[in-house]
């Protein structure tokens, strides 16, 4: 014979477990139905984003499937710290008729106004930038977030730039004597992005022969 207390404990436990099982079944079902679609959506979005950084007209391969890992522990590349990466990250190879036509490199500007700004830069074999995009940031809305293409066109001013255009001294904001605009009320964010991009170009030049033999 169960006492009243035991009875209520058993009842509450079974009901709670029942609800938990039902919720788990529903969530599993929804996940199973959506999983394939979600994976595909992410891949499509990634491919579209990469094709904006390295225009589809300048390569004929699928960038999402032609990637390699930059291992921050390895000494395979010289001066890998120029990219500012905090963990192993993917880079992408653009090819035309199997020949490498350029790369998309990940980089991090560590000295943003609110911490890291993650970027991807497309670089042609001749060292010119095909596109630069911010992939993650926590900069101030309305000020620093102007580096985001959804907010302003500023980041497009890097297109076709290279280490000769301007010379290295020009790779900062106008306020510091450079070639790139700062924003009204915000110098730190655009300067961080500009300096980090210049360093990524330096990394590309330092490792050119190795990177282009991929």
């Amino acid at each position, binding site marked *: 014979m169960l006492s009243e207390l035991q009875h209520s404990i058993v009842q509450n436990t079974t009901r709670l477990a029942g609800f938990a099982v039902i*919720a788990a079944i529903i*969530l599993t079902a929804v996940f199973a139905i959506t999983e394939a*679609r979600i994976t595909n*959506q992410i891949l499509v979005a990634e491919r579209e984003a990469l094709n904006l950084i390295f225009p589809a007209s300048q390569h004929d391969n699928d960038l999402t499937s032609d990637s390699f890992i930059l291992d921050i522990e390895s000494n395979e590349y010289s001066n890998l710290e120029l990219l500012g990466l905090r963990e192993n990250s993917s880079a992408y190879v653009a090819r035309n008729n199997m020949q490498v036509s350029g790369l998309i490199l990940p980089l991090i500007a560590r000295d943003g106004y609110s911490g890291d700004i993650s970027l991807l830069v497309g670089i042609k074999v001749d060292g010119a930038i095909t596109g630069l995009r911010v992939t993650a940031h926590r900069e*101030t809305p309305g000020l620093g977030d102007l580096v985001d293409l959804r907010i302003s066109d500023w980041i497009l001013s890097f297109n076709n730039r290279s280490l000769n255009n301007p010379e290295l001294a020009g790779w900062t904001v106008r306020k510091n004597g450079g070639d790139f605009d700062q924003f009204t009320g915000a110098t730190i964010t655009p300067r961080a992005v500009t300096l980090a991009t210049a360093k990524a170009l330096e990394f590309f030049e330092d490792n050119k022969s190795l990177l282009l033999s991929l």
Partner: protein
Amino acid sequence: MMTSMNKKLKNISAQALWQNNPALVQLLGLCPLLAVSSSVVNALGLALVTTLVLIFSNLMVSLIRHQITAAIRLPVFVLIIASFVTCAELLMQAYAYSLYLSIGIFIPLIVTNCAILGRAVTFAANNSPLISAFDGLMMGLGFSSVLILLGALREIFGTGKLFANLDILLPMATNLEITILPNYPGFLFALLPPGAFLFMGLLLALKNFIDQQIVEKNIKNLSPNPSSSSLAEDIS
């Protein structure tokens, strides 16, 4: 029967939108409210999903209210709300990926919105499903209106503009950005978290001020003041 139903719905709406507004009176859901109200677009995104989750969680809680004992009430409600939010996130990711990219980061915040759990416990657990769903809709609108108003105020004072980047949320709505204050230098404080608290405080003060005006007006109308009002004529 019909009129009493109407009265009940009217009462629910008045409670949700004004007298017992989840954001302005109950002060529930402040965490997502203050975090996401830096622009109208962000506010709209969170408002939309929060309202949907409120409707469905209220409906579901009401449907199973007779199967739940007091001891397991809270864990079951949290389970229901968290499951709905997770389903919403998965479905949005699969079928509305561009919307997910713009407001997806706010969706987990909805679980932390006590306004939703609050409505489940205080209303949906004691009322029939349709009434509960209606209450969810109205409470969602009450929360949304404050969220959007706060977003608009902070966007105008912070950047001098309104509806910037609305196309992230509604792809067809391009160039709806309005410049309210031309050549505005920007007021960073309004966009940062302390600004959210300040503007929320101002909204609270405004609501209390309006309520006080209404009370004073009612007292004036009720008191038999012979020098004015229609009451005087009745007495004479």
